[in-house]
């Protein structure tokens, strides 16, 4: 049984990932008049995945704004509003569409604090969702976190559970820097324990999702539930896997990762995004730099194939890491022998 399942079975309240996100926005909008929401279909429709449902009734049209399909300019407007004292939450329907907002995020939002000598701040949250798994094909299924991870000045958050989603979004909204908040389309309906009382999760604090002693899996977003179920299968064979979820890629909880790797002496990094130029490669390089002497085997990466996501469901599945791929990588790592 995984930790998140345990939470579901407890007596505490269990809600969906999208409901947890909705609560975070509701609470922060009630708490602070400068918080507002804009995006395509976020008001009347309540968002494609219902994350912004009910906000229009509660806060009205001034603070819950439907936009035309003008991603670059309404994101830029969010940046400008943030510079002038507001805390906007801008929703980009699919992470695939964030390529349309790159100038505003990369050249404007990420650089502003720097270019004002620290006097100007951009407390904007760009909420978006990525990932594959339900036949949306090449332009609606990508995992593009590495694009933002690469840019100094941006924070990158990728929650895997309802609990994390709420606590991290509340912190992201209160953060004074631009935050890319990347959700996963397959997680919206997933349930988990979320307390009724207010809480925050500090950006940069990862979590051990499953304790283990033989090998460390580092993963995030929808690869967490997949890694956890792989860990359960491996446990049946006597392999005790520790699963680490950094939860935020920037800032990255290096200490949590290093402590775990130094303990288990083995590491596998699982990401849905394509292998080439990915965050997993960077984390692997950090581990080998900082914990080389602790490693019993090379750090393994299980990642998406270097291909666009196919529409055909069978081929889509073959393009991104599955449970069996994770299991194989863990066994291969543990069986590694020098020479």
């Amino acid at each position: 049984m995984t930790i998140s399942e345990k939470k579901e079975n407890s007596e505490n309240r269990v809600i969906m990932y999208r409901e947890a996100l909705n609560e975070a926005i509701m609470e922060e909008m009630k708490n602070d008049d400068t918080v507002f929401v804009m995006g395509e279909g976020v008001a009347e429709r309540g968002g494609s995945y219902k994350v912004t449902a009910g906000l229009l009734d509660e806060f009205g049209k001034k603070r819950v704004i439907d936009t035309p399909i003008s991603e670059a300019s309404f994101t830029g407007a969010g940046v400008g509003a943030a510079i002038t004292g507001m805390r906007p939450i801008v929703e980009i329907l699919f992470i695939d569409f964030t390529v349309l907002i790159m100038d505003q995020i990369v050249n404007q939002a990420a650089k502003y604090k720097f270019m004002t000598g620290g006097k100007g701040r951009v407390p904007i949250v760009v909420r978006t969702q990525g990932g594959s798994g339900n036949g949306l094909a090449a332009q609606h299924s990508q995992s593009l976190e590495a694009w933002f991870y690469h840019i100094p000045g941006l924070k990158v958050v990728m929650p895997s559970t309802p609990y994390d989603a709420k606590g991290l979004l509340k912190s992201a909204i209160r953060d004074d820097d631009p935050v890319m908040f990347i959700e996963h389309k397959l997680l919206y309906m997933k349930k988990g324990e979320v307390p009724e009382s207010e809480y925050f999760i500090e950006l940069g604090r990862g979590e051990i999702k499953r304790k283990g002693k033989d090998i460390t899996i580092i993963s995030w977003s929808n690869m967490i539930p997949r890694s956890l179920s792989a860990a359960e299968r491996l446990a049946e064979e006597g392999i005790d896997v520790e699963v680490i979820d950094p939860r935020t890629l920037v800032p990255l909880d290096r200490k949590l990762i290093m402590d775990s790797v130094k303990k288990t002496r083995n590491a596998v990094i699982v990401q849905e995004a394509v292998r080439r130029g990915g965050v997993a490669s960077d984390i692997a390089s950090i581990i080998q730099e900082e914990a080389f002497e602790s490693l019993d085997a090379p750090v393994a990466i299980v990642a998406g194939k270097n291909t666009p996501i196919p529409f055909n469901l069978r081929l889509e599945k073959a393009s991104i890491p599955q449970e069996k791929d994770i299991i194989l990588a863990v066994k291969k790592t543990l069986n590694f022998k020098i020479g």
Partner: protein
Amino acid sequence: MSFREFWRDIYKNLYTIRVFEKNCIRLYRQGLIVGYFHPYLGEEAIAVGACAALRSDDYIVSTHRGHGHCIARGGDIRKMLAEVLAKEAGYCYGLGGSMHIADVATGNIGANGIVGGGIPLGIGAGLSISIRGTEQAVVIFFSDGASNNGVFAESLNLAAIWNLPVIFMLENNHYAVSTPIEEASRTEDLYKRAEGYGVFATAIDGNDVKVVYEKTKEALEVCRSGRGPFLVEAKTYRQGGHHVNDPGKYMPREKLDYYMSKDPVQTGRKYLINEGGFSEDEVKRFETEIENEIKEAVEFAKNSPELSEEKYFNEIVI
């Protein structure tokens, strides 16, 4: 404010920009400014006229050719010179340079290295005003070059549907770097593009500071009374190439001569005498005062230290 004071302030800004830019060109030729920068020479009346009409709590959005906007908005020329000379005393510790000067204190959201990149930021300033329900306004300075970027069209539409208090101040200097407007647009009257978005628009003589001031004031009244955005196309011409190192040989002599004869600083000088009541001697003394102030600022900047690597990596970069 008396006419005398009004025209004194106007001319102070016009002449300060002129002398500031000429000093920067000299400093560049001496190798003291690195990279390159984009002089505002010939366009001074637009920034000065528009900013004179603003309240102190309004916002402006500037461009890569941004020295003039910053000065007209009341920016600190010592900090500006220190910035373009890459010194710690600059607006941004010398980390931004000419194209990245922002001044939070004067509501100057900032210059921008990306042509058109600032337009949506101005929409955002307008949106935050609209949500807060204050009577502030925004002037977005941008160019004919930026008007061919997609965000211009998007932003014009957003300002229109959200009824934002935003003035689109289109500085039509007839060139996008070296490409003349007639090659980049089928009509040279760019203000006409606003009509399709339901936005009030007009074209004016951008070299006449009085015209710019009066039209901006009128547009601001429209904005502040909740009747939405306004586009003002200010026709002007650069008095040189795209940047300090571009001789601008592609600019036809007769057109340059025509705009030189309508020099915005000389026009402002005439207003100072005819409407501000200054005598020729008073103007000359005033000009010497401004020149001395800039000379002093140049010396200050030249003698200022650079930011150390240690301070940069340990204190500034987070």
